[in-house]
């Protein structure tokens, strides 16, 4: 493999890069990574949770599954998923953010999302980090796609629809490899992940040619 770039991304910060069709993105972490991608040549074409779920006909995606855009085109294909068998990546959550933490605290609901109601809350989260990751392309906040939430294992009762936050994360850093099926702007957030045993951790973002 030929490494194009390999970046350390500190906890609760954002990362973004351009990558070309055929290149592979390897995201490595032991806590949640929020991820989104945009067509490099048409910033109107963005990753879409709903299309991705409907095209794959499932709410959890893994190796072999495809990330789709709102405009119905394949954007990326998952090549290797080291989380498989341990947990699922999430396609239900939007992004955490300063405002969402503040609202959860105000409503006394932090414990529903995290471990305790007295936990210190960060002033920013994945929404702000993804805005920062895409800053080269100036994507307005309201157009940041709801992401693929990597390593965010959520318990979902598909009968009642109930969604439960869990602290289930990889024990050690593992990776997800996915190939660009078009030229892309990609962004990732090292989530503050207040539900993880040791909170959000740094991530590693590598782009390589296979």
């Amino acid at each position, binding site marked *: 493999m030929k490494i194009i770039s390999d970046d350390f991304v500190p906890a609760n910060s954002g990362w973004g890069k351009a990558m070309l069709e055929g290149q592979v993105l390897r995201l490595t972490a032991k806590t949640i990574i929020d991820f989104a991608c945009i067509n490099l040549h048409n910033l109107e074409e*963005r990753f*879409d949770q709903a299309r991705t779920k*409907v095209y794959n*006909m499932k709410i959890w995606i893994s190796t072999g599954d495809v990330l789709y855009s*709102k405009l119905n085109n394949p954007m990326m294909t998952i090549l290797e998923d080291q989380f498989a068998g341990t947990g699922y990546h999430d396609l239900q959550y939007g992004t955490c953010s300063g405002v969402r933490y503040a609202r959860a605290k105000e409503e006394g609901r932090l414990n529903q999302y995290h471990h305790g109601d007295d936990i210190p809350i960060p002033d920013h989260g994945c929404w702000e980090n993804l805005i920062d990751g895409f800053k080269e392309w100036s994507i307005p906040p*309201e157009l940041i796609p*709801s992401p693929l939430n990597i390593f965010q294992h959520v318990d979902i009762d*598909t009968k009642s629809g109930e969604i439960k936050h869990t602290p289930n994360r990889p024990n050690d850093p593992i990776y997800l490899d996915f190939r660009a099926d078009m030229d892309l702007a990609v962004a990732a957030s090292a989530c503050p992940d207040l539900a993880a045993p040791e909170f959000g951790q740094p991530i590693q973002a590598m782009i390589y040619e296979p």
Partner: protein
Amino acid sequence: MNVICEATIAPNKGWIGEVNRGQILSVMGKSVIDFNAFKRDDIREYFDTARTRIYNLNMYPTKGHRLFSKQNNPMMRILEDGFAGIGFHDLQSSHGCTDAMLELLSPMEISFADLPDPMGLFRNLEISAEGRIRPFPKGPTEPVAIDLEAEIDLVCGLMNCPAAETSAAGAEFTITILQP
């Protein structure tokens, strides 16, 4: 309660209009209805399926749940859900009638790319324990109503989706806006 507005919407037709804070939008039907809501005073703030799921910590919106915007503000509250016990409204899918919804929302100048995902009223998407989305949803056999209270001034768009896979494709639906 005063009735502010009443309308009957034929298959493959839509309705767009204002629903002010405190008013109740009652939607009665048995076909799939794609629903979008925008903040009246800033249409860049609109209903968001992901924020809504996570605020309610539930995939299936029903009585007592709130509809949230991408900017994390409450937009509507579900007061009654006549579909409860029959099926679930859908917060997983894209529009089943994108072109028609875009035409309906043309006053808002929303592009295809920016069209927010809808709430699919009465779509009843079935999801297995393994996360498989089942391709044969069933709608209600008789018209049922969902009542939504506006928490801010809104513009709402509803499209009577022709979605051929539902048992009730081709039925009309009604909306009523009530002022308590």
